[in-house]
């Protein structure tokens, strides 16, 4: 009797051990220290390049600033506040504002002008930062908490200074607890105009699309938004998608051109009808049209801009404008066929523990956070990256650089150079992209679905010889 009972208990306990031991081990292995530097996080990936290009030369992130202390051409003070946001639909929500509004003010500057933005945190309890999405700012101005600065606590100020090198449509947003602070309103548009300003013939409009608690807005307004334009006017609408997923934009009542993607002009864009444009999460699309006598509308999947006389809304055209074949080729300025480094960025998903929590987690090249790749580069490297999604849509965003799309699923890009800083990678798709490493620092290369980023879909581009004194954890939570 005792023998059988003991055998049974031993068998039971062995069963438990077999079941629980691997789980316990996986749980333990997934824990991360309370705080850590991105420079010591993950596995360095040299991409087939040299290990140390400049072993003697070391520079720290805080020193990578805009040189000189000239008088700013554009000076803005932004006050971040925990606030109530009221929509014109009557909806109210507890959110975050900049200078009392969300989105914050549109900042306009010319290429090469010195922009100075003083961010004062009045009452955002988690602390906050501002990231200049798409702008090749010096690394210390990139606004990523725990990577390029410490989060700005309540009562403190941080001053951003940079000279935007390229004209185009950009936006700014918090990069501290961003998966909460961005949806709750810490966002705004940044338009960089060419030297000498915009051409006065074109009406220039910002259409920042943001959803507040499920209500999609354009520049904070809902529904049909009348715009001051008359028939015959040439209009450029700068669509900015601040959300976690792609949106569709199209034009009712007249043909249009896709003049720019992210902040890069499309070379010789054709005029199209019956096409919708996909605007990547975090990405931008500049639509250009001439208002016809009967009026036109820019449709933004819910809200719309009404240009000229009121005209009927049209359904979304089935066909999507494909930037891979749109426009005409132009020189890239570098040769992507002879890269110094090649990286893979393959995104999958599997059940596991991350930070001690069980769940379905994103993997990068088969590894889970924090064991993500650290893409090592040296200045002037030509870098190629193959980005694949095996599960879900991922808007991949590289800080501080712009990437050019070379191919999608093996089909080469034959249109205008397709420059992006936010690239929509759908499940099953593989994109080959290339860029020149011309902006030293520690740069995030992550999914701009900020929920995915918070779940560990983040990697970094690290330049050799760059020291990162900031730490993630201890109040810095970039995602």
């Amino acid at each position, binding site marked *: 009797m005792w023998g059988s009972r003991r055998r049974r208990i031993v068998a039971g306990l062995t069963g438990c051990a077999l079941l629980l031991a691997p789980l316990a081990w996986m749980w333990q292995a997934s824990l991360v220290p309370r705080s850590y530097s991105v420079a010591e996080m993950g596995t360095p990936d040299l991409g087939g390049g040299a290990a140390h290009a400049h072993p003697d030369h070391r520079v720290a992130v805080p020193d990578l600033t805009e040189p000189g202390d000239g008088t700013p051409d554009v000076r803005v003070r932004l006050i971040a506040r925990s606030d109530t946001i009221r929509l014109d639909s009557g909806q109210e929500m*507890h959110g975050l504002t900049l200078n009392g509004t969300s989105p914050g003010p549109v900042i306009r500057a010319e290429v090469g002008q010195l922009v100075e933005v003083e961010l004062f945190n009045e009452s955002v309890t988690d602390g906050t930062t501002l990231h200049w999405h798409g702008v090749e700012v010096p690394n210390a101005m990139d606004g990523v908490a725990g990577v390029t600065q410490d989060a700005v606590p309540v009562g403190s100020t941080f001053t951003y200074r940079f000279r935007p090198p390229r004209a185009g449509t950009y936006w700014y947003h918090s990069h501290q607890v961003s*998966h909460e602070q961005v949806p709750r309103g810490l966002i705004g548009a940044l338009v960089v105009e060419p030297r000498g300003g915009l051409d006065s013939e074109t009406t220039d409009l910002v259409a920042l699309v943001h*959803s507040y608690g499920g209500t999609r807005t354009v520049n904070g307004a809902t529904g049909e938004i009348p715009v001051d334009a008359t028939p015959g006017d040439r209009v450029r609408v700068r669509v900015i998608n601040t959300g976690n997923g792609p949106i569709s934009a199209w034009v009712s009542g007249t043909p249009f051109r896709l003049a720019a993607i992210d902040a890069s002009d499309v070379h010789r864009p054709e005029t199209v009808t019956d096409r919708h444009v996909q605007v990547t999460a975090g990405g931008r699309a500049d639509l250009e049209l001439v208002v016809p006598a009967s009026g036109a509308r820019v449709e933004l*999947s819910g809200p719309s801009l009404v240009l000229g006389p009121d005209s009927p809304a049209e359904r979304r055209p089935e066909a999507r404008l494909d930037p891979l074949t749109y426009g005409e080729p132009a020189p890239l300025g570098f040769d992507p066929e002879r890269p110094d480094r090649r990286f893979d960025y393959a995104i999958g998903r599997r059940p596991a523990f991350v930070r001690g929590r069980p769940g*379905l987690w994103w993997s990068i090249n088969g590894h889970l956070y924090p064991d993500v790749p650290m893409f090592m580069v040296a200045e002037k490297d030509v870098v190629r990256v193959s980005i694949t999604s095996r599960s879900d849509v991922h808007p991949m965003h590289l800080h501080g650089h712009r990437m050019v799309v070379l191919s999608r699923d093996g089909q080469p890009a034959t249109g205008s150079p397709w420059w992006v800083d936010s690239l929509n990678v759908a499940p099953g798709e593989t994109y080959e992209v290339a860029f020149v490493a011309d902006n030293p620092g520690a740069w995030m290369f992550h999914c701009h679905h900020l929920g995915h980023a918070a779940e560990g879909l983040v990697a970094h581009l690290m330049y050799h010889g760059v020291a990162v004194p900031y730490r993630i954890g201890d109040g810095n939570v970039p995602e």
Partner: protein
Amino acid sequence: MRSAYRVLAYVIAAEVVVQAAALAWMFSGLGRWIQDGGVLDKATMEEEGGPLPFPELVGIIVHGINGQVLIPLLGVILLIVSFFARVPRGVVIAASLLGLIVLQVILGMTARGGVPISSMVHGANALLIFAVALLAANRARSEATEPRPSASADVGV
């Protein structure tokens, strides 16, 4: 231990009911929200971090937490309990139930990744989990009323 086995099996069966109800509730809320002018696309589906567009969306959150955390956990505990509960074929049934639950999580995951057939099987597999959970509970109950020769050795178990 046998009654623990029985209760756990019933709880898993009840959880399947909760899962179905939560999803149905969410869909009716979604329908009303769309009628009121809400737009559902990828960007809306991926919204996080702000207030919910409609209150019934809680249904999908409940479905996710229940399905990905709570029910698998109950399945693991049931399997552990089965080692000690002396329910005839109790270990096999608990292990199969856990297998079906794992399959269910994978199906839910691939369905969400854009494979509609997975959703179909996910719905059918839910009924299978429900049935096996009830079978497990039933086994533990009928055994409790049947005297067994070794029952005297089970004092305290």
